[in-house]
């Protein structure tokens, strides 16, 4: 979900995704390369994101990933579900 959210703004390469997640979480989530690329492989195989080789600003080749239509739908769904769950947990914690 976090990777999808990152890509919702603009297409990005692997390093960009990890930096963006770190920034947005203010350093709470620091992704290990293995977990990050495993997640990317899975999302790509599920057709939620699509990869394309492009050159970076430093004229280096990197694979840029962008969100597909299906990925956008999944992101919307998961975000809704997540908010629902967080709200429920919060209510439970407040009740006690």
């Amino acid at each position: 979900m976090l990777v999808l959210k990152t890509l919702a703004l603009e297409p990005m390469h692997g390093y960009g995704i990890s930096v963006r997640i770190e920034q947005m979480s203010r350093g709470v989530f620091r992704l290990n390369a293995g977990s990050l690329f495993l997640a990317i492989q899975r999302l790509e195989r599920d057709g939620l994101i699509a990869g394309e080789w492009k050159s970076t600003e430093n004229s280096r080749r990197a694979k840029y990933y962008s969100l597909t239509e299906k990925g956008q739908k999944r992101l919307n769904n998961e975000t809704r579900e997540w908010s629902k769950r967080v709200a429920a947990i919060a209510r439970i914690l407040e009740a006690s």
Partner: protein
Amino acid sequence: MSLLRNVAAGLRSLFQREQVERDLDEELRAYQEMATEEKIKQGMSRKDALREVRLERGSVDAAKEVVRSGGWESFLDTCCQDIRYGLRMLRKSPGFTIVVVLTLALGIGATTSIFTLFYDVLLKSLSVASPAELYRLGKESRCCYWGGYSQENEFSLVSYDLYEHFRNHTQGFVELAAFQASDPLFSVRRSGRPDAVQSYPGEFVSGNYFTMFGVRATAGRLLTSTDDRPGAPAVAVMSYRLWQQNGSDPSVIGAVFDIDSAPFTIVGITPPSFFGDTLRSNPPDFFLPLNAGTLMPLADAGDLNQPDSDASGLAQTRRQ
């Protein structure tokens, strides 16, 4: 769709392994390089920056391993590797290989032949509707011979009267059929033909005998309870084997045969795989109703209706 894509991606990494590896490698190197450059910008030396990145984000090789093992194809890949390794090891020690292969071959062969035998003798021998529901009444496994029989020690042969009593008063069975305890040879000739009389094995059976086995006639019909009553028309059923030996002549059905000098009308032919109630080398070629015994002055079975005569019983349990 996503399943198809998944399969396609897996196949691609299996069959275009080098390309996929190169791509992954390039992607991860770029990732590492970008992270390192970021550190250098912050004032670290290149060496320190690389070390730092490896510590923070893991090495490229470790990441590759994780990504590789994430797809379903890695399982297949591992299996192939294991098989290749196994074959290599087997080639290294041919003596062991030969012993193992021979042991397996003999084992499989022996098991197969024993099962074939078991299947033919025990499972296939009675080609009847539901063999599992058949029960033979009696204490000893004796059905078709009298020698050394003693009713005091074993309870295997019953008189016709006792059979009738059992049949009429036992609730637990769908059918209770009986057949003759001995296996006589009948002298047979088709009526009105000048052929020589020939002898064939036969058997007297109760009217519900074929109903109990649940077998169906190849041609004509099999015996029913109405055929097995005193005074009923004399009818008989011929075995498929004998019918076939005589050219499967359709005119046999309805024809009259003299069996031990009494005329019997052949009403039907048994199914090809039915060889009677017992496995034996001379299966019956003629099945006659038990009550028809009285029609045959010369037959042993002529006194089947006498209280002291014996018949074997075979029963089928009630279907649930």
